[in-house]
């Protein structure tokens, strides 16, 4: 018997949002009694139970392609002209990487080219955000549904602990960012803002959680922190376990995001869910994800970002407002709701009679 659903993804990796999303779709569909097969390009330790793309026969009732970068799995779909459901997580523009990591720039460029070729093969587009959905519509895909990334962070929602945060000292405060250290995420802007903030609050610190990609960017970030004289108060935490991530969310006082390209922004939702106030630059899908629950800035010059963070750190009432709104906004992405949305997005394709 042919499997009902194939999910195609370049590779399954641990601590990767798209891989987790794929696993959760698999679980969802298996609960609904569908047979699901994950097809990968590169097999890793996290790929148990998957099959390589070379063995893919495109005989499933529905094939879902997870697309966020140029890949062999996408190429295989194009080559076989197989109808797909395109689950689009957006592709970072190559310009951000060209000078830092040409190899990656080529890969994302390829992803964009493939997107154009995939459009005519797409039965339905599933986008993480309205921002991503518009891109698919601009490619001529008419049937597009917005359904956020599925993910489950242990203890994700903190409905009841909105008032438990300790008082922040007058000259301190911890500013946090979670995400790959990458040029499009603009951690250099956060370090610059922190250099200003540290003049206003000498005991404050900045924590950057995330793996470096490309590594050269990390070197430059460290150089920037050193030359601005704040290297002793900038923590490069690297890639951390889920448990440590929760720990960082708990010790932080504000999440700051200067990213210029976010197709969705999982850490924004995680922060809101943990009752952490968010200050973010208004780019791509950021404002949409925050849904009015964070401070969104149209200017991310260091003094502006630092002023916003300082305001949050010193204004208890504002902290409380942001915390409550954040928790409420994050509830929209509760796994029970997003699973339902994903099921709604797929149901008529899997159960045509319904």
């Amino acid at each position, binding site marked *: 018997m042919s499997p009902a659903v194939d999910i195609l993804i370049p590779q399954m990796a641990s601590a990767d949002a798209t891989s987790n999303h794929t696993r959760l779709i698999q679980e969802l569909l298996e609960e609904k009694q569908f047979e699901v097969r994950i097809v990968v390009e590169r097999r890793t330790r996290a790929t148990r139970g998957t099959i390589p793309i070379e063995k893919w026969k495109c005989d499933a009732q529905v094939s879902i392609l997870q697309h966020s970068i140029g890949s062999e799995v996408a190429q295989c779909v194009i080559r076989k002209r197989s109808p797909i459901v395109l689950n689009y997580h957006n592709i970072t523009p190559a310009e951000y990487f060209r000078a830092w*990591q040409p190899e990656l720039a080529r890969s994302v460029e390829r992803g964009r080219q493939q997107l154009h070729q995939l459009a005519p093969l797409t039965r339905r587009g599933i986008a993480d955000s*309205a921002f991503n959905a518009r891109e698919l519509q601009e490619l001529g895909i008419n049937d597009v549904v*917005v359904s956020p990334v599925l993910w489950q962070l242990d203890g994700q929602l903190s409905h009841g602990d909105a008032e438990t945060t300790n008082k922040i000292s007058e000259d301190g405060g911890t500013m946090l960012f979670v995400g790959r250290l990458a040029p499009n995420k603009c951690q250099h802007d956060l370090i610059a803002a922190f250099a200003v903030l540290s003049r206003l609050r000498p005991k404050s610190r900045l924590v950057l959680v995330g793996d470096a990609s490309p590594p050269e960017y990390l070197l430059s970030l460290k150089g920037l922190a050193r030359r601005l004289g704040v290297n002793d108060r900038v923590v490069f935490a690297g890639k951390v376990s889920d448990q440590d991530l929760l720990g960082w969310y708990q010790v932080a006082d504000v999440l700051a995001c200067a990213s210029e390209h976010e197709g969705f922004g999982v850490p924004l939702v995680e922060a809101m869910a943990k009752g952490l106030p968010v200050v973010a630059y208004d780019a791509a899908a950021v*404002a949409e994800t925050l849904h009015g629950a964070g401070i969104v800035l149209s200017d991310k010059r260091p003094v502006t970002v630092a002023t916003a963070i300082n305001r949050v750190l010193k204004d208890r009432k504002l902290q409380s407002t942001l915390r409550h709104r954040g928790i409420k906004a994050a509830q929209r992405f509760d796994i029970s709701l997003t699973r339902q949305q994903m099921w709604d997005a797929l149901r008529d394709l899997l159960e045509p009679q319904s």
Partner: protein
Amino acid sequence: MSSPESLDTKQSSVEEPNAGRPDMRHLSAEIEAEADNLRQQNQEIALIELETEQIWADLSPSDNAVGSDSSVGSDNSFGLQNSFGAEGHLLDRAARAAALNPQVPIGSRRGLRSIKWAVRKLTYWYIRFLTDQFNVFASLLVQHLRNLEARLSRLEQAAGVVDEQPVPAGLGVLPDPPELAIPVVTKVASAVNAGPCLVLSGGEGALVQAIGNQGLRAYGVEQHPDRVLAGLRQQIDIRSENVLAHLVGSKDAEFGAIVLTGVVETLPLQDLIGIVNQASLKLKNSGQIIVAVANPAARSQVELELGAGLGISPATWCHLLQHAGFEAWLEPCTDARITEIVVACRTAQAPTIQN
């Protein structure tokens, strides 16, 4: 189907993003205003912002990391290829070439592909380890070269050194215009009514000498060393430099008159527009521009074909200068080659001609 907001909503509507609640928008505006105040009141903090920009430009692989395809253009309007831009492009290519890709191609031949795939798979951890180190090293190297290049470029700009710039488009295609004949020298010198006067290009200096004889301070700039030497032997103030760079490097409102002759006959229109704009800046309020060039239409067939698009006629010069805010007219000249000269006086604050 449902959007994130309404699970009940059927079908594939794409929700418009919510940019934020009105009170949050108001707060953001308030914060931005507070930041502006802070910049104005606290110089130290305002300086951090400027300093950070410079430091990051030094640390990132390219000054224009985002959108690096757009060339680093020259600020002057001459359309000269900027050496910084050209080398920057070369460094971009070097950076791309230096990035080692650990994903070795495995081809498409069936049996061989599997073997190569297996070899790649087995050695990937090792190759990746090596390529990562090399890529970091190459990136740092290119980054330092870029910094060096940017600093050299700034130094050259500050020192007015542009000798290493490529020869302006047009030079070399046509033979160098000959020295000005005596009737032209006399005519132009008599038209100059205020100093100091800059002659571009000065040739062997006959015109500079004639203007000097009228009691006006004048000097010429010539880029052919043999001609400069001939002028120097006669103790005429002829300087050896790129004429365009000299004009750009001169102080604003420095000259009473600028004479354009010689090399301008061999330049394309875009450069000529740049010269007019620059000359306009360097002239005093009541300054003159005098142009003494041959009509390109009078060139031999070979020169016409080789020099298509290079140089413009006195009538077109007249039009160009009028367009730049000068009152310009043609004056006849009794020379077989240059039959008329263009005399232009500034009428008002001259507008800049758009390229």
